[in-house]
């Protein structure tokens, strides 16, 4: 076992993890943060996206030990029913959620984009969201929601 220290959603944790344990397992199984989804488990779908030190990563491809010393935001740290993040609000408003399995990863990719670039072009939005696959929505409403969230942020 390896001891790691990390900050998840503003809370510091010290965890004992297996050498081969993935970050997604540590988040889901050790911290009970089940909002992070595992789709493919091989870095293709983006369902497991979290923000690590200001960058989106596929948490299925990061070893928990590699996350030692890092600051992580998972979907649980983004907003909640009472005070949703502008991206979450826009998703609900336009109906960008169908089965919802891709949604946590989508919201984190969108949030990270808007944190860095408050006025993204359509192309920049497309590129930022292209690592997150969705089989239900056809992306149409998702891209629209990100645009709305960006516009709201500007005001």
């Amino acid at each position: 076992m390896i001891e790691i220290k990390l900050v998840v959603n503003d809370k510091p944790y010290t965890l004992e993890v297996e050498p081969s344990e993935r970050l997604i397992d540590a988040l889901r199984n050790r911290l009970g943060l089940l909002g992070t989804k595992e789709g493919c488990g091989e870095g293709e779908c983006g369902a497991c996206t979290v923000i690590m030190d200001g960058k989106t990563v596929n948490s299925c491809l990061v070893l928990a030990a590699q996350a030692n010393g890092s600051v992580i935001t998972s979907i649980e740290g983004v907003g909640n029913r009472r005070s949703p993040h502008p991206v979450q609000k826009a998703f609900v408003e336009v109906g960008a959620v169908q089965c919802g399995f891709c949604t946590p990863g989508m919201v984190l990719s969108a949030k990270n984009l808007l944190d860095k670039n408050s006025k993204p072009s359509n192309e920049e939005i497309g590129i930022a969201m292209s690592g997150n696959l969705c089989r239900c929505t056809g992306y149409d409403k998702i891209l629209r929601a990100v645009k709305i969230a960006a516009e709201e942020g500007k005001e």
Partner: protein
Amino acid sequence: MKKRGIGLGCSWYGTGYGNGFPDVSSAFVEIHDDGSATVLTGAVDVGQGSNSIFAQIAAEELGLESKDICVYSGDTDATPDSGTTAATRQTYNTGNAVLKAVRQAKSSLLDYAAHEFSCPTSEGIELKEGYIGVKGDPSRCMPLADMVFQARLKGERFISAESSTARSTPVDPETGQGAPYWPYAFGCQMAEVEVNTETGMVRVLKVVAVHDVGKALNPTQVEGQIAGGVTQGIGFALLEELELKEGKINNPALSSYLIPTALDVPSIEALFVEDAECTGPFGAKGLGEPAMLPTVAAIINAIDDAVGVRITSLPATPEKILQGLAEKKEG
């Protein structure tokens, strides 16, 4: 060189299991003394939004708002079977079962209310905006919750169980005659593509999709299903190929079986035709699968229009297009 083309695809699609297979949905309904109602049905909402549709159907019939309806679904311990979420059947089939069940519970409520209001017939009673009363007589009217509460004290409950079976007869294998499906869904889409004649790559620039949905009970969901269907259709036309080798799938991963990403989707304009289906709940019929059907034909025709290459096997990969262009050159 980049060449553009436009193509059209049309579809008709029989919804439901079809061919005489028993296609049954069912629902339990109770109208409560707090002015809400519960719908129990086995139909599973996999994200397409059937629970919202059932809540809307019940609310519309009871003069309530959808938030007043609790839909409890897809629990084999507690809900009556409503078949699979497949065959584009939940809005139509289970929607019909829910509507029948709501109407049954409502009819005993109306009978009770007619008696309470000294109205000769339940035809004279209406449910509106959370109130129940005699049509055209505002003095004889009370909150629905109060009426159900009073009824409850007298031992009356408004509970129902109903099922709905879709019309379908098997097709005669000899003559090909029969009425295997009801209803049919119709759709038509146009795609504009850009084909790169050097690389064989196809970009879909725009898709306009028009679908006959009978009645769009929830327009946001209709748009969502159309965009989702069109995007799967784009994958079907250009990317997705299941490679089998001796019965084994060669590409069982998203790295080798490609599906469209946010960068592959064009602007999708969804339009719907509302030609009420008289056997459907409030005129509605299904849209799930039909939304992806015309996309493939529209894209393949658009490729033909752009570069004169007829693709006859899916997906239309760059290799096939380059081969088609080479064959054309050789004449």
